[in-house]
């Protein structure tokens, strides 16, 4: 299943609800474009909800890293919410787990931007 991205606003924070796979040729480009679009519109607070992401490959990991770096360079904060076990395992294995701000609870994640 390809990646679908739904956008919503919570207290001025853009939450992107991702569903499907973040892989080369399926979700990587969509995610990149969604982040670039938000950054270009001046959004400084972005929360990626990965609760329905079933699969991520090395390209998808690279895209998350790029999204984080791009956001940071533009003065925006990109955080992650609701990692599935598979995504969490891969982030831990690649030592990226400590790079991101990661939350299991949306309310806590939203409050962290204050």
């Amino acid at each position: 299943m390809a990646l679908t991205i739904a956008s919503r606003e919570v207290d001025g924070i853009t939450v992107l609800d991702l569903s499907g796979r973040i892989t080369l040729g399926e979700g990587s480009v969509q995610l990149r474009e969604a982040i670039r679009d938000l950054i270009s519109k001046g959004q400084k607070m972005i929360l990626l909800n990965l609760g329905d992401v079933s699969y991520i490959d090395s390209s998808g990991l690279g895209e998350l890293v790029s999204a984080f770096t791009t956001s940071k360079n533009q003065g925006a904060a990109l955080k992650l919410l609701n990692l599935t076990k598979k995504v969490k395992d891969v982030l831990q294995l690649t030592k990226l787990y400590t790079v991101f701000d990661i939350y299991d609870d949306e309310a806590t994640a939203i409050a962290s931007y204050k």
Partner: protein
Amino acid sequence: MSKPGAGRLEFSLNSTMESVGEVEATADKLAAEAGLDEDERFRLTMAVREAAVNAVLHGNDYDPKKLVKASFENTGKSLVITIADEGEGLDPERIPDPLAPENLMRGTGRGIFLIRSFMDEVHFRQLHPGTELTLVKHLAPPEGKT
């Protein structure tokens, strides 16, 4: 197909992302039929996908004149998957460590690391031209046997 001794399944595929999907799906079927649990299936499938992406993208560079060859076998003791490209060759010793602090935030370079992490054995063979990766996942012996 993936029952022990059921033979070796071989494909010759075009250098496309559709081929990556086909290889990935075959690996998942092999793993499922061999009785691997969900986590092990995911790891094996991901390793095979990364190898196929490397072959299509980095090895053959999507060249329509170059093929990717893949084979899948359940030997009874192991699942053995080979993925070969017709590219310029890959020296695994020259791949930067993606866990090194200076590489941690790079957008690429984690594929071989993930393959090595998820498989029990990984072998590289230079084909001149091309590279063949052999990925091996050992199977637990059936209960009651050692």
